[in-house]
């Protein structure tokens, strides 16, 4: 009885494995075709006009800030100097306990003003609005602590331009990133959201707030994450975007149509994964209203962020991401399998439920069942090794596929040493890292049920870059924990 049940389960696992990898293959193929198409069209895209035209759609950059005193002044300065014709920077000081607000007041000659919000979204109280006497494009909002999503909503209420992006204060944006990110909105005015690529800056060299030379670090954990990001962005997101089923736009780097987000209710401050939840809600909002809309991903505009370099911090980050995914899927479960929601409801959401959200639990059960079957001799060693080898090989194929796409289209990692490090990371990822990731994400289910809900920013221990973006003091390993990426 036990054996037959296990055999049935193992058969299910085999089917699950093949179906999952079939979907991965489809995504990589779609991603490859999307990138090929992008490379073909690249030569005819006129970024020069966008970058130089006063008619280019203006953007509000909303910067939620919590205890960012060492870096906030320089971060804001870098954003104000972004290469874009018309933009404003809206910094939202979310009840920081340190001198974040005072640092801004001193550096930018802020004065307190009365401002009527242009939109009404529920947020924790705004204490004061400031404008700068020397930077006309800077607005600072001081409010009571309410968390990141709440801060962005406050920023939305005071932002004045039709498009907005949210950028973490410690994220670096490529010089032409905003120009590239705005283009879909100008070519297709029905676009409501556009995501760009988030790349890992660890190991790279900075000049001021710009990435001067892209390199990989020595830390294998970070290199594994680089490969992971390449797979996720260059294959996964391009693929989903190509079939109109993009479910996630990175909170670190995305451009949105302000009015549509406000109409949809703004960011949800009660969820951990507010960025993913917003995109799903935008899909739902637009489809339920029968609006013509697009949510797209563009592979070229890039922002850079620091990846966790220790297992502990990485585990916390992935736990948080997985909780966010589960919450989002649960909140919008009525979209699953419903034709009314198009490719989102029929493909993307079922995929994310079965293979992403529940995937860790199924995989863990699979490891256990497989182990029991091998232990009792119900599966031959040869078959077991063949299956493990196949899974390993397929994982390698997907990772190397992503490296090929990167090399074909972008070539950010110029040196052979970087390529070899990433190739090695793609191998090592399958031995331990993937299994650890499964455990951490499975644990997210437990964390969800036991964790108290609080207005959290998460935690991230910053180790700093090769050259920091001119902070007052260089972050060290002993620095108090700060918010997550």
């Amino acid at each position: 009885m036990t054996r037959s049940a296990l055999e049935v389960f193992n058969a299910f696992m085999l089917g699950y494995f093949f179906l999952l990898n079939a979907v991965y293959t489809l995504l990589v193929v779609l991603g490859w075709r999307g990138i090929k198409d992008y490379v073909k069209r690249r030569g005819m895209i006129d970024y020069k006009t966008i970058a130089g035209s006063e008619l280019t759609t203006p953007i509000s950059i909303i910067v939620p800030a919590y205890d960012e005193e060492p870096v906030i002044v320089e971060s804001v300065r870098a954003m104000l100097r972004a290469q874009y014709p018309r933009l404003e920077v809206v910094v939202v000081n979310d009840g920081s306990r340190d001198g974040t607000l005072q640092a801004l007041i001193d550096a930018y000659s802020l004065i307190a003003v009365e401002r009527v919000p242009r939109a009404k979204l529920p947020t924790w109280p705004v204490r004061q609005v400031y404008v700068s006497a020397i930077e006309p494009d800077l607005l600072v909002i001081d409010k009571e602590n309410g968390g990141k999503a709440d801060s962005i909503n406050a920023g939305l209420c005071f932002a004045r331009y039709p498009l907005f992006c949210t950028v973490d204060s410690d994220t670096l944006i490529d010089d032409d990133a905003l120009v590239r990110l705005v283009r879909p909105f100008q070519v297709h005015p029905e676009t409501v959201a556009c995501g760009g690529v988030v790349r890992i800056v660890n190991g790279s060299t900075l000049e001021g707030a710009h990435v001067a030379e892209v390199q990989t670090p020595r830390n294998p954990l970070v290199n594994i994450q680089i490969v992971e990001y390449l797979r996720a962005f260059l294959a996964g997101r391009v693929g989903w975007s190509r079939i109109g089923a993009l479910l996630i736009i990175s909170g670190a780097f995305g451009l949105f149509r302000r009015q549509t987000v406000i109409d949809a209710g703004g960011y949800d401050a009660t969820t951990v994964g507010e960025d993913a939840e917003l995109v799903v809600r935008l899909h739902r909002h637009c489809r339920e209203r029968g609006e013509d809309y697009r949510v797209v991903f563009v592979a070229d505009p890039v922002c850079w962020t620091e990846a966790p370099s220790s297992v502990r911090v990485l585990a916390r980050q992935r736990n948080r991401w997985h909780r966010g995914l589960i919450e989002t899927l649960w909140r919008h479960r009525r979209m699953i399998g419903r034709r009314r929601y198009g490719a989102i409801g029929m493909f993307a959401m079922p995929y994310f439920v079965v293979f992403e959200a529940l995937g860790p639990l199924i995989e863990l059960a699979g490891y256990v069942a497989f182990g029991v079957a091998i232990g009792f001799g119900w599966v031959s060693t040869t078959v077991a090794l063949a299956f493990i080898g196949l899974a390993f090989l397929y994982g390698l194929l997907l990772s190397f596929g992503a490296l090929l796409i990167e090399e074909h289209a972008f070539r950010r990692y110029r040196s052979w040493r970087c390529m070899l490090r990433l190739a090695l990371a793609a191998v090592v990822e399958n031995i331990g890292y993937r299994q650890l990731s499964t455990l951490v994400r499975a644990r997210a289910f437990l964390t969800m049920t036991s964790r108290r809900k609080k207005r959290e920013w998460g935690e991230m221990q910053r180790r700093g870059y090769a050259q920091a973006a001119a902070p007052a003091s260089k972050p060290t390993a002993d620095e108090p924990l700060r918010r997550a990426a």
Partner: protein
Amino acid sequence: MVLLTVVVALKKATRNRAECVARERRRRFSASLASGAGDEAELAALVADVTSSRLAQDVLLGVLAHEWLDVRLRDRHRFQDALRRGGLVDELVRRLAAADPADRGRAALLLGHLRLPEAVAPLEPLLDDADGDVRHAAVRAVGLVATEDAAWALVRALQRGSLPPERILEHVSQRWAVDALLAAYHIVEFAHVRAVLAEALGLAGDPRAGAALAGILPFGSEEERVRCCRALGRAADPAMAPLVAAALQDDAWPVRAQAARALGAMRADDRATVGRLAAGLSDPAWWVRANCAEALLAAGSDGRAALEAALASDDRFARERAREALELERVRDEVRAA
């Protein structure tokens, strides 16, 4: 794993080689452009390369985009003639009907960057292409040709609404298009895009635009009046100040707000205008009050005096706007002095 690594390594090596080839191409094309295409052999090689390779087309586009204006007019004409003789122009025109949008777009951009007057007619249908990237490439290409025919092609595209008006404005709002813009402005068929034509005239910065804009401002639709004020603000011609100041009495607050902003750009400081701006500090609309305060600051000592007088106003909103504007100016003065 070794095999996969070799595959990626081969890709890297191939791309490295492609970059070397691109650098060599750039050098050759640049030399051809500077010398007016050189001898027949060089010309034939260039035409063959560009015709057969998308990468070569991208390189030629890059060279033309960066270097065309640096080349002497005589050599530019020689280059154009050489390419006509060599058959490249005919080939590019033929490719405007290619099945692949990337080919259509590239051909359009090459014709545009070559500034070939005869290219406008075959380019115009691409302004309505099914592919958005091709439409945008076509509008840029036509804008680069910069002839009266090109201006009319863009004006007709405005009329048809085949692209967002701003995307056409970016290319048609130039001095070379003003005659066509002015003529279209008075044609009945273009009546529904008069506001956009007015804005184009303002962006073009041609002095003749003022008279056309002055005609719309009192009588046009709300959108037209807003665009007019914006255009007059960009032109920043102080002679237009009385006309724009009258728009501070407009029924629609967006028009009043734009008018105040335009007066700020003009630094209008005549007594009547300053008086109207001071009255605008009590406007019911926040943006009108804010823009009037900014315009008074830009008006110099008379404007500042009006703001200081407003500190004693019965109207709370006027007092608040005046206080904020003066406080900002005070801090700016302190920073400058420091």
